[in-house]
């Protein structure tokens, strides 16, 4: 690519092209800003090549066109390209960088979008962690405490809903079976509230236990729970006691 003497020091990328868009001459800045190429389209990003071929001809070059150039490091830069064709079929072409303010705003927007995306992603990871912790809490909300050879105490903690019961149910059945318990005492003192699905599930658990031949006691019932248990309108295979102490004393 030879440099024409009369415009090589211009402070803008300037080219002389023929009809085939071969670069006949260019300013110094053109060779430092863009990739090296013998043809003009070789300086452009793939999405701009066809546009350059269509618009850089004597019949259409009245208006400036936007083209995306590639820097030597393949970074895209949009520029306005002004062209004037001479009668000998040579074009003088000037590429004018976009207004700096425009670039600044565009970079800022890109940055904001990336931040939003990253925040979104971080939130997703946090949510997964929170879900995991919640599952841990569920698993811990019905521990099986072995009192003696025969008896297991199971206090229920917090709000009892379907998900919590589904989490603890298999573990309770497994524990009772493994520890060969004969009496299971559910203590509801620390139980916050129980919704309808939780209640149905709890009753199902009690039924499963009684089929296994286990005697079940329920204690620590708050008036609020009592109302709920009544609403269930089902036979509950368990005896009820006012306090844990009563159950423990009665068993002996």
């Amino acid at each position: 690519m030879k440099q024409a003497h009369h415009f090589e020091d211009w402070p803008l990328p300037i080219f002389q092209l023929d009809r085939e868009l071969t670069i006949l001459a260019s300013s110094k800045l053109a060779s430092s800003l863009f990739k090296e190429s013998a043809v003009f389209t070789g300086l452009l990003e793939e999405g701009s090549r066809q546009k350059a071929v269509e618009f850089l001809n004597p019949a259409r070059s009245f208006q400036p066109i936007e083209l995306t150039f590639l820097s030597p490091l393949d970074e895209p830069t949009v520029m306005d390209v002004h062209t004037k064709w001479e009668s000998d079929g040579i074009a003088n072409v000037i590429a004018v960088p976009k207004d700096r303010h425009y670039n600044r705003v565009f970079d800022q927007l890109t940055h904001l979008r990336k931040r939003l995306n990253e925040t979104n992603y971080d939130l997703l990871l946090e949510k997964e962690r929170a879900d995991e912790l919640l599952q841990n809490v569920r698993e811990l909300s019905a521990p099986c405490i072995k009192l003696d050879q025969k008896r297991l105490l199971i206090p229920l903690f917090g709000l009892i809903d379907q998900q919590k019961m589904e989490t603890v149910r298999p573990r309770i059945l497994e524990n009772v079976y493994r520890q060969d318990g004969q009496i299971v005492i559910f203590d509801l003192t620390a139980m916050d509230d129980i919704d309808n699905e939780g209640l149905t599930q709890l009753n199902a658990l009690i039924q499963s236990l009684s089929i296994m031949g286990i005697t079940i006691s329920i204690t620590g019932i708050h008036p609020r729970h009592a109302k709920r248990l009544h609403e269930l309108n089902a036979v509950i295979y368990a005896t009820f006691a006012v306090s844990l102490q009563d159950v423990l004393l009665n068993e002996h």
Partner: protein
Amino acid sequence: MTSDELADIFLSGDDYYALRKVRYYLKTHTRKELFQELLTPAMYRIGQLWQENVISVADEHLATAICDFVISATDNRSQAEKEAAGKVMIMGFEGEDHYLGLKMVACVFREHGWVVYDMGPNLPLVHAMDAAEQLKPDVIGLSAALVSRLPLVKSYMDAFGILDPKPAVLIGGRAVTLADLSDAKAEGAVVLESLETLQNWIRSRKERNHETSASL
């Protein structure tokens, strides 16, 4: 509403009008239809208008931002909360900033109950590998709009091949409709030309998984 009309609304910059129109369309159409029949052709149309020197890059960015807003505002995240059909990580190749396609792909996966990690466009391979080792996705989706990115396919595929468990690799985006990807296919990648084919792939995978679990 035609996709050309929607392109004009995007270019006008009226975000809420665009959203109203799209919500109305969604009453009688699926999200996949919205993406495939309306948004994608509207954005191709906008690219074409730039090619024809009718609009500037600034207009194009405005339209992209509004399309982005519409996709986000109509995204249905509740489905992915209900069932965990699988984990997918999606990204664009390094050196390319097209991201609307990724967002649409994320929506389609979510609608089928998948957990989606959208890593965004222009993701260098080292970062992709870090994230994949941490997240252990069942599927990795790669998107390219520019054909010039496709030579990178092999290096990404080779890197993902050493992950344990090895994820399925999907490649999509406008570039795959313009170039030949038989090499990537030979290495085991699934090349998907449209959201339609993506949806079919998700469905057939679900059926396959059912059959596998039924035969166990």
